[in-house]
């Protein structure tokens, strides 16, 4: 950089000027343009450097749970609207992380990070909508990237390190569902029961549960439990560390326009009341509250900008009978 500064200073050193009048003005102008470009590029670099994602765990955890959904990010065009909606619904508060044009907010519940909300204008193609992105824990992002590609995934964002957060990458699985992997620099969240307002469960809704299960099993080492189902379709549950992590379900046959996607569920105490509140806050109820095999209700809703997520009732005690 010192060399560049010296070079620029030549412009104001009369001894170095090659001529006078028009030529002198031209040289000054040229150096001014150069200085502007230099300033622009270094500013850009500086703003990139100042963007730091906070760690997942504070204090750091020694736990690691490959295959566990450990983080979710919302990519939305209306950050303020999303903040208001989720704050009213779940009591989330926010810590802003700004860098240049980037606006990113960490959603907190009782001071613990629960999600990231990321502001981004939609692409010109208007047939897109905001979405929640699912991050699955891995010990080695680069090894997972190689394995993903080898097994038919597409890389959407190459592995990248954020010093405090860890290393992460984003993929589309062989059926097209988008997911991310994260090797957290501060360890993974412990395997505890989520509190109301926290993420508790995830489902992959896909065109080919059988092959997707093989894909995710290869990546994360899941134990796959086929579930008894009376509809003749394949419903699977994925587990690691003797904990259920996610389900794989087929795309409903009567919804041919749907595409494979990950769906994340927030724990609620009353799915019917929360779904009603979603409507009141400007969101939509996409799947009305309905009983599931755990004995509680589940529902699927969308926030006012269209990002889809689930609601899942779960009681603390283990004395509730399984739905038959």
């Amino acid at each position, binding site marked *: 950089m010192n060399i560049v500064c010296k*070079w620029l200073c030549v412009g104001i050193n009369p001894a170095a000027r090659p001529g006078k009048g028009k030529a002198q003005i031209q040289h000054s102008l*040229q150096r001014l343009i*150069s200085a502007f*470009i*230099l300033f622009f*590029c*270094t500013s850009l*670099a*500086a*703003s*990139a*450097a100042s*963007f730091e*994602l906070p760690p997942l765990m504070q204090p750091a955890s020694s736990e690691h749970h490959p295959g566990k959904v450990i983080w979710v990010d919302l*990519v939305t065009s209306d950050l303020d609207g999303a903040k208001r909606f989720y704050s009213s619904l779940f009591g989330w508060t926010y810590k802003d992380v700004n860098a*240049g044009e980037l606006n990113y907010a960490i959603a907190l519940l009782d001071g613990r990070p629960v999600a990231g909300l*990321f502001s*981004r204008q*939609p692409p010109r193609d208007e047939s*897109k*909508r*905001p979405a929640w992105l699912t991050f699955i824990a891995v010990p080695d992002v680069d090894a997972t990237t190689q394995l993903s590609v080898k097994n038919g995934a597409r890389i*959407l964002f190459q592995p*990248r390190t954020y010093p405090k957060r860890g290393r992460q990458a*984003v993929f589309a699985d062989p059926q097209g569902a988008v997911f991310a992997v994260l090797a957290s620099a501060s360890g993974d969240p412990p395997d*505890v029961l*989520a*509190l109301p307002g926290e993420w508790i*469960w995830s489902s992959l809704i896909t065109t080919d549960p059988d092959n997707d299960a*093989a894909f995710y099993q290869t990546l994360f080492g899941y134990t796959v*439990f*086929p*579930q*008894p*189902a*009376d*509809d003749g379709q*394949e*419903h*699977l*549950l994925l587990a690691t560390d003797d904990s*259920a992590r996610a*389900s794989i*379900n087929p795309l*409903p046959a009567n*919804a041919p*326009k749907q*595409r494979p996607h990950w*769906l994340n569920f927030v724990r609620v105490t009353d799915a019917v009341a929360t779904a009603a509140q979603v409507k009141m806050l400007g969101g939509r109820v*996409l*799947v009305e509250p309905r009983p599931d*095999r*755990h004995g509680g209700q*589940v529902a*699927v809703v969308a926030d006012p900008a*269209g990002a889809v997520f*689930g609601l*899942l009732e779960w009681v603390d005690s*283990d004395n509730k009978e*399984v739905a038959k």
Partner: protein
Amino acid sequence: MTGPGYPWFTRMLSVLLLALLQACAVNGEGYDTVGVSYGVGFYEPYGYEYGGWGPNYMVVPPRHNGVWRNDPNRFIGGRRAGAPAPSYRPADPSRRMPSIPSRSRRR
């Protein structure tokens, strides 16, 4: 390009190159020299109606007291007994299906 007529251009190009190199170095990875894009900007396809879940469409695991039963007369994972082997390795039928972690958070 490097002749006496274009010295200012080559110098400007050098500065630009130097600045870009610096940007890459600061970002560490260099794949995204713009840097400020966090890298998760994706939007899902829009324009379809969600839902279509039938009465037996279930997504949640049973609770801990639930027993995963390998009843050969029932559908198991959409496959009747004797159906072709799945692409994945299924859990041993004797294994109990784990549930969502139930341990309370330490305060």
